[in-house]
């Protein structure tokens, strides 16, 4: 049964490109996560709080879910529930059919969603005649290669830049290059067509907030925003367990998720979706697909997972075999790999994936890295013990190893037998060499020798020692137990920080992200922006209607065309912002009438005008603002769009803006 798996493992280990890619992933991601976590003095405490919140949600899932659904529906989003993969697919096809009657060749722009992998969304919609295009760079790459994601956050983690260059040369017809920015730009231009012409956008959901009916979708490249906001129909797919009670909880989880996933303080785009925009149709498909059964099983805790992927990055097994190494007994690649996948895959999809839990030393690195402190080793042991919701009816034949372990257990439960066996082993060891060179087929013999058992076991000699050695040992005074250190004192958070401190922090954080801050007095604002546009030879901008100081009129007087809708030819977008967040250098930008969200997304340059008094210190504070839930959708922008999907190399400017300029206005 595990033969295929072992064969696959050997194949992965023997692939030098894969090994180089996986080593690079582990090195970078582990360091990034540690740095990000270390920067939060109360990380350990946040983890425990997050664990408690997730436990509460899963314990009260029915209530939280119905509250959430009621709110989402009240907000004007259509909610559908799917008990399994087939039903989710059927719903998606029905929604498409109703929105576009008589059309069976729709263009579907898809953002990253692990749920869609789980239910086989792409093949199902494609076989119905539609064209589904993955728009996350990593997903786009693996779709071109006809592969499954090799990592839940970084789907193309298994590839090197040369392989991507060859792929793009072959599939996109561009000259071969292994220059990552060039490759990223090629994907951008191909996908831009898809976004602007797509009939339907599909996204995942990172968190659903019950109190407000918020769909929170976190991305870096901007493709996710394109999928949710540009096509006339948006379908969001979410697992039924991905819920949080309140926006305060969301702030907590947003402080953990990006730090754990990529080491960022916040992802570039944090979307908070409440209502459809304009004439848009929004649907939410909430998927069970085995989650209810997992919830009623001893694997329940696995539902706390927030899909950050940090357990994959620290796992020594993942580092050897990558995501594609995790296959079921039938050879199918598990939709969820790594430590989390070795529990959730058999939990949701059955015993075909139970063997994954064997590929683990129980080292506990996954538990240590988990931002919600899931006890993965405990759950992996439960999978090994067959405690999955849907165990196979037939018991499998015990392997030789299991047979041996059964005999050993039987001996170990009878002290006399154990002693006898121990003597026998001791006697046998007299005729053995110091180390035994066991054959490879024993498993152990592949890479190490086996120490010879001692001729006299501890228990044999202990009695003798007991009688002769007591007197020669001298008692020493035992010192008092030392009190443990109090541990690092939690640093005081920067509360009551003055306005200037906020501005300085905001400035610093945004510059670190690759954005820029222009501090300016209100009377100079117009001329500064005009100068900026002139310097870049920009004659056409997309803009909010209600910018301060009758800004639009001033632009028009200077022969600059101002549109409220996006178009491929407009290079700059001008928006305001509700507030800026100092600790992460983020802008909170609500959408709504006259405030197209696409102005901060589609043009390659984004100019944001923010009153310098409108800075708050933390994300938590920002999420408490009443405007957040009133706007149909709000995006929290943290720097220019970026990706690290090829070799973890940071590239700025993917689908969203390449440049972000914040004009911070005084007085």
């Amino acid at each position: 049964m595990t033969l295929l798996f072992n064969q696959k493992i050997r194949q992965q280990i023997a692939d030098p490109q894969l090994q180089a890619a996986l080593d690079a992933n582990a090195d970078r991601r582990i360091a990034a996560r540690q740095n990000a976590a270390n920067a939060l003095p109360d990380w350990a405490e946040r983890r425990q709080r997050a664990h408690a919140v997730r436990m509460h949600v899963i314990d009260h899932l029915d209530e939280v879910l119905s509250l959430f659904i009621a709110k989402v529906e009240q907000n004007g989003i259509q909610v559908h529930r799917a008990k399994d993969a087939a039903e989710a697919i059927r719903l998606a096809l029905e929604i498409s059919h109703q929105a576009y009657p008589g059309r069976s060749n729709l263009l579907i722009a898809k953002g990253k969603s692990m749920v869609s992998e789980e239910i086989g969304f792409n093949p199902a919609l494609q076989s119905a005649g539609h064209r589904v295009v993955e728009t996350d760079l990593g997903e786009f790459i693996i779709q071109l290669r006809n592969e499954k994601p090799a990592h839940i956050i970084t789907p193309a983690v298994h590839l090197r830049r040369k392989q991507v260059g060859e792929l793009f040369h072959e599939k996109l017809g561009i000259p071969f290059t292994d220059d990552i920015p060039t490759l990223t730009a090629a994907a951008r231009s191909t996908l831009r067509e898809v976004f602007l012409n797509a009939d339907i956008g599909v996204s995942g959901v990172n968190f659903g907030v019950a109190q407000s009916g918020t769909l929170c979708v976190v991305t870096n490249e901007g493709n996710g925003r394109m999928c949710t906001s540009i096509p006339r129909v948006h379908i969001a797919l979410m697992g039924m367990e991905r819920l949080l009670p309140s926006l305060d909880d969301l702030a907590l989880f947003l402080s953990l998720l990006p730090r754990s996933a990529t080491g960022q303080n916040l992802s570039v785009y944090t979307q908070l979706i409440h209502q459809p925009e304009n004439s848009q149709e929004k649907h939410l498909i909430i998927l069970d697909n085995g989650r209810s059964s997992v919830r009623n099983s001893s694997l329940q805790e696995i539902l706390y997972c927030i899909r950050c992927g940090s357990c994959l990055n620290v796992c020594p097994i993942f580092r050897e075999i990558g995501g594609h190494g995790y296959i079921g007994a039938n050879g199918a690649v598990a939709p969820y790999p790594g430590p989390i996948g070795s529990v959730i895959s058999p939990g949701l999809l059955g015993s075909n994936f139970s063997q994954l839990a064997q590929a683990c030393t129980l080292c506990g690195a996954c538990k240590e890295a988990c931002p919600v402190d899931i006890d993965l080793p405990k759950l992996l042991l439960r999978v090994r013990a067959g405690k999955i919701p849907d165990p196979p009816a037939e018991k499998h034949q015990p392997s030789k190893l299991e047979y041996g372990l059964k005999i050993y257990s039987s001996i170990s439960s009878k002290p006399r037998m154990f002693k006898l066996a121990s003597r026998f082993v001791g006697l046998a060891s007299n005729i053995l060499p110091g180390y035994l060179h066991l054959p490879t087929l024993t498993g152990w013999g592949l890479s190490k020798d086996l120490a010879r058992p001692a001729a006299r076991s501890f228990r044999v000699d202990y009695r003798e020692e007991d009688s002769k050695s007591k007197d020669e040992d001298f008692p020493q005074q035992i010192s008092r137990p030392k009190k443990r250190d109090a541990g690092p004192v939690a640093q005081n958070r920067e509360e009551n920080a003055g306005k200037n401190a906020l501005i300085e922090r905001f400035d610093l954080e945004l510059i670190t992200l690759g954005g820029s801050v222009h501090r300016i007095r209100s009377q100079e604002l117009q001329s500064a922006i005009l100068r900026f546009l002139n310097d870049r030879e920009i004659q056409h901008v997309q803009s909010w209607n209600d910018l301060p100081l009758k800004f639009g009129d001033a632009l028009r007087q200077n022969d600059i065309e101002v549109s409220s809708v996006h178009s491929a030819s407009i290079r700059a977008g001008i928006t305001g912002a509700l507030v800026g967040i100092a600790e992460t250098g983020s802008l909170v930008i609500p959408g709504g009438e006259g405030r197209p969200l696409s102005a901060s997304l589609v043009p390659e340059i984004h100019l944001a005008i923010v009153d310098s008094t409108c800075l708050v210190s933390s994300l938590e504070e920002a999420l408490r603002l009443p405007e957040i839930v009133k706007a149909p959708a709000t995006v929290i922008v943290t720097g220019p769009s970026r990706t690290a999907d090829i070799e973890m190399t940071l590239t700025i400017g993917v689908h969203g803006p390449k440049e972000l300029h914040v004009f911070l206005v005084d007085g």
Partner: protein
Amino acid sequence: MPTVQLFVTCLVDTFYPETGHAIVRILRRLGVNVEFPQAQTCCGQPSFNAGLWKETRPVAENTIQVFESAPGPVIVPSGSCAIMIKHGYPELFSDDPEWLDRAQELSARTYEFTEYLVDVLGVTDLGARWPGKITYHASCHPTRHLGLNRQPLALLANVQDAELVTLPEYEECCGFGGVFSIKHPELSAEMLKRKITNIEISQAPTLVVTEAGCRLHIAGGLIRQKKPQRVVHIAEVLDHR
């Protein structure tokens, strides 16, 4: 004078009795009365970790009964066996209140060896001497599951004449994992290879561990690769003078 029971573990009993003797000597020097119940066997970890929980129960019941014969701390020279008692037994008996109580009673007074020395006895200097470089591999179970790291390092820091050098990636698993090393020999081999490379980089001739399993694994790999480095249990270093 405190009295403790030693749970020597099957690997130490069978492969490394010298570790057990070192522990007895160290504890006695500290004025601790050591008892060794002869009816002890294995903690049941191999079959438990292989998913054979039904078969593990009688093994765990034996261990509980054996150590119930006297009160006081139970000292284990292996974090993974301590974890088996502290976490594994309560899991095994979760549906059996009577045995669960007994398991929890034992679990509460079970200590890994270095944990007992440092956290209970408050001792970090044992007057040991070990000439030359040593390096320390932080075995996964004591380090991550019991949170023991400071304890073995504090004890090693006080060993005279020893130069404690850092093992690169010292918290990375060596690839033993019990039945894992047999079920997935290829993965185990790769992880062992990394560990041995790091030992070589450290330039220490002696690797100190707190787990007999890691010792069996790493030492076996060093021999297979014909490397000169050797592996010792921390008790043997602390007993050396």
